[in-house]
């Protein structure tokens, strides 16, 4: 045996592995099947922080939120059975948004596996389609290498969640601890790196000869750290860009060539540009149905280049002319030197026209006497520094946040995009607060979504998470109500939703709470919230029947947007 090797239990070894991987914080919840892990935590407290969540879903979202702001792997922990199944929504959320995460579950003893023992759930089986990879560790000797592989898989290539299920007897078994420094040996896993010369030449040809090109800026830009490379391409070749929801912040909102978000609730300008483009350059995005609308009529005149690290995304939804399976930043660094400088005045002018029209019509009238969700979010934007981290939930307020909060910096907008998980924002922001120490964090959440994981106010207070919570309280499951209004003849079935008194709820949890009903009170409430060290909450009571415009109805073509009725002859009823 090597002198430096120590004999450890599986449980101790687990903490050693986490320390080796640079893990600072673990979000978790104990139970029968992970007791050995928690018992040994005492000895590692000075090196790893553990946050006791109130529901395991919260643990998964916290790990996810932490991963999204830090780019590091987030770690969540739960016991077997119900603890493990409670993680599932959080795992699915991370999978859809390619968030690097390692989830560690306790399992009944390996000797009892398969016998339906108390709290036995086949969690590796249940999460098979929801994880990038998973392990059931049957032997303590394999534990350290499993951790090494799991972290490597979670953070490389297209990142994603990896689950490690550890039977209780494996946690108790002893072995020599040796954390190898050797390169990982996974014969079936080779994230691609660069594009072939041929692909680069073809791409350059397509870009240099296009008259009306548009860049589709996806989440992959963040993952690949390709922000500057994309902006270089935009500026050198005068190519406008439109981000996806998760691409917000990859290109500064203030950049003159940034068209704003694409898709269902994207800007009219971006959607028109996509439809009229003669070249789309898709960077680390996956042509989700929420951004393409009807596929048959999607960007009908364009040639398409798609660059993605995940080969299975290429030609999946949209057929492309050039598919490049490689790391985005690497590809752009191959392409950019060959870009011909162009001004493309005609195209840029055309786009400026659309932009003008959009800002007149779709941005909410700021002078409305009733408090509107959009106003609140706009005012939050005005009152926060541009590097503030905004964590939104899912619904109307999410789309309003995408529209009214101008994101200037990468990693400053966190939201559940692919899965659209209500209840994501509060725990995700708590998770983010363990990495973001010197910036403001704002949760923007609906009254529906806030009530889905409200229990996580517990750890927020206990850990002193420095977050500001803005509840956009419209008394409805607003986004569903919007669909009912537009497509179900305003039959509001089960969408009106009551709320507790949030100010009192805040008080009960031990954090300051404020209520705002008038526009002029927004800034002072914001000041009170942010001057408090630790979590604070503001209940913004807003117009109940507000709508998010523009909107491409599901299944319609991207240019067939429902626009906000012109202020002069408004037909959408407000304030009823």
């Amino acid at each position, binding site marked *: 045996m090597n002198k430096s090797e120590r004999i450890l239990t599986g449980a101790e070894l687990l903490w050693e592995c986490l320390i080796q991987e640079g893990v600072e914080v673990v979000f978790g919840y104990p139970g029968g099947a992970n007791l050995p892990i928690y018992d040994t935590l005492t000895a590692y407290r000075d090196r790893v922080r553990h946050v006791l969540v109130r529901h395991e879903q919260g643990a998964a979202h916290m790990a996810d939120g932490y991963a999204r702001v830090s780019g590091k792997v987030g770690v969540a922990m739960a016991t077997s059975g119900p603890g493990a199944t409670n993680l599932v929504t959080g795992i699915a959320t991370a999978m859809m948004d390619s968030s690097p995460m390692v989830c560690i579950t306790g399992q009944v003893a390996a000797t009892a596996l398969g016998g339906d023992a108390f709290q036995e759930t086949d969690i*590796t*089986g249940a999460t*098979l*389609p929801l994880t*990038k*990879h998973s392990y*059931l560790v049957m032997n303590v000797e394999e534990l350290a290498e499993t951790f090494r592989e799991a972290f490597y*898989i979670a953070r490389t290539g297209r990142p994603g969640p990896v689950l490690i299920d550890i039977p209780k007897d494996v946690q108790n078994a002893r072995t020599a601890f040796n954390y190898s420094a*050797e*390169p*990982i*040996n*996974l*014969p*079936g*896993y*080779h*994230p*691609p*790196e*660069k*594009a*072939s010369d*041929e*692909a680069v030449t073809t791409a350059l040809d397509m870009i240099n000869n296009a008259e009306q090109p548009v860049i589709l800026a996806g989440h992959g830009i963040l993952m690949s750290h390709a922000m500057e490379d994309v902006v270089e391409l935009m500026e050198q070749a005068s190519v406008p860009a439109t981000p996806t929801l998760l691409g917000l912040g990859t290109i500064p909102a203030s950049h003159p060539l940034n068209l704003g978000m694409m898709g269902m609730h994207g800007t009219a300008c971006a959607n028109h540009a996509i439809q009229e483009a003669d070249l789309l350059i898709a960077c680390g995005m996956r042509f989700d149905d929420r951004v393409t609308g009807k596929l048959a009529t999607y960007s009908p005149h364009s040639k398409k280049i798609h660059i993605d690290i*995940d*080969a*299975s995304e*290429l*030609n*999946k939804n949209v*057929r492309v002319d*050039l*598919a*490049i*399976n*490689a790391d985005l930043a690497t590809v752009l660094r191959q392409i950019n030197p060959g870009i011909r400088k162009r001004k493309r005045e005609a195209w840029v002018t055309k786009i400026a026209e659309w932009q003008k029209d959009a800002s007149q019509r779709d941005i909410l009238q700021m002078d409305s006497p009733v408090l509107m969700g959009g106003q609140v979010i706009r005012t939050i934007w005005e009152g926060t520094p541009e590097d503030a981290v905004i964590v939104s939930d899912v619904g109307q307020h999410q789309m309003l946040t995408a529209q009214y909060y101008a994101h200037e910096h990468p990693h400053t907008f966190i939201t559940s995009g692919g899965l659209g998980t209500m209840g994501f924002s509060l725990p995700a922001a708590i998770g983010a607060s363990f990495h973001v120490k010197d910036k403001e964090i704002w949760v923007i959440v609906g009254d529906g979504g806030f009530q889905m994981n409200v229990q996580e106010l517990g750890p927020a207070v206990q850990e002193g998470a420095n977050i500001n919570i803005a509840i956009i309280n419209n008394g409805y499951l607003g986004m569903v109500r919007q669909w009912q209004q537009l497509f179900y003849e305003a039959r509001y079935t089960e969408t009106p939703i009551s709320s507790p008194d949030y100010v009192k709820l805040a008080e009960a949890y031990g954090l300051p709470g404020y209520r705002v009903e008038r526009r002029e009170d927004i800034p002072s409430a914001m000041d009170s919230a942010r001057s408090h060290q630790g979590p604070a909450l503001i209940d913004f009571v807003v117009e109940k029947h507000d709508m998010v415009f523009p909107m491409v109805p599901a299944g319609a073509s991207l240019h067939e947007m429902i626009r906000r009725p012109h202020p002069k002859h408004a037909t959408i009823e407000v304030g009823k």
Partner: protein
Amino acid sequence: MKQVLIVLVEDKPGVLNRIANLFRRRNFNIESIVAGHSEVPGTTRLTIVTDEEERLRRNIIRQDLLKLINVIEVVDVTEQPCIIREYALIKIKSDGATRGEVGALVDMYRGRIVDVGTRSLVIEVTGEPSKLDSIIDVLSTYGIIEIMRAGKVAITRGAENPADNGGLHLWKNSRGKAVTANAHKEGKVS
């Protein structure tokens, strides 16, 4: 034409489950799947036949399989010269009166009678799937009791192992010693 994939995987628990799950989740149809040890210790080789007709979708199936961590290489041999065989055990009704006649038929298909009962026969036959269809059709006149077909196995013609250019090569390199983190990152582009 059916899509035929030759898939080399690590011999790890649950790999078949991952593959089957992938097909179900992505709404692809598996027509047959056959697995067995390959020539490389620690690996299994599968022949998977799907009913996907479209080229781009076929490529996505391949890429989705490659995305599984334990899958080393996937070669789509649909349009390559290769040998495809299937094996079947066929139990038919037959007594002393028809036994001789059946024996002659089975010979024509180069099959074998592997079990004789007073009222039944079990016939073993190997060949191209169409040959199996044909003998089953002929034997059905006697009354088929049970058929067990083993699914298609495929191998390419010629001296090469098609997996050698990709994952298998890396696997061979990596056995015993770890490959450096970047050695395998070249290739597999566009």
